[in-house]
């Protein structure tokens, strides 16, 4: 089962966890991204995420394909939120289950690393005195 969504409402860690449960699973690894209160020691007020949604879903689907092929996962749930997020809010949850735990850690790390490289989602950091699109400038 793959449950891949881009949502403009708060994400729920528990429901992502529940989505990947399976009697053959020995372990579930969940990665939860959080909005930090600072970046390079500059105070962040909030974040704004936007996405090219149809392509983002397609790229997330490619990540899921790799998870099944390379790590033999049982199920995966990737939820990414867009819109305006406050400190402590959850922009992304990736949960996956595998028969053995080592594969779950590796697969989950691959999933978030690849998501950050290939999925067309953009984050704008909003400071008290301005805003920047993350990663846009060297």
């Amino acid at each position, binding site marked *: 089962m793959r449950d891949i969504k881009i949502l403009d409402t708060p994400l729920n860690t528990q429901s992502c966890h529940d989505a990947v449960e399976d009697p053959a699973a020995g372990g579930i690894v969940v990665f939860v*991204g959080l909005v930090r209160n600072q970046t390079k020691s500059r105070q962040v007020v909030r974040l704004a*995420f*936007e*996405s*090219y949604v*149809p*392509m*983002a879903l*397609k790229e997330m689907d490619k990540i899921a394909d790799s998870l099944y092929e390379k790590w033999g996962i049982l199920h995966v749930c990737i939820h*990414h939120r867009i819109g305006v997020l406050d400190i402590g809010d959850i*922009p*992304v949850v990736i949960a996956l289950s595998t028969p053995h735990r080592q594969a779950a850690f590796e697969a989950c790390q691959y999933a*978030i690393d690849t*998501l*950050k*490289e*290939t*999925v*067309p*989602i*953009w*984050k*704008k950091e909003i400071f008290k005195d301005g805003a920047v*699109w*993350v*990663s*846009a*400038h*060297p």
Partner: protein
Amino acid sequence: MKINLIAFGIAKEIINTPECILEVTNPCSIGSLKQILMEKYEEFQKIQSIKFAINEDYQEDHFLLKEGDEVVIIPPVSGG
């Protein structure tokens, strides 16, 4: 020929619209389009890397555009 240009993130701010129609000479590769944009909007030269997507897939510089293509400018992504 005309292509539909769609922009997200900082690219949207640079071209100052989420979507526009651009007139280019035929043939036009993605590599050529990148040159055109760099000249028309100097700020693109400051961006770390710009990719392009046609039909929701990344395409490389040698990819040839055709009349009416929807070309999406993908500045460096920063999800997660």
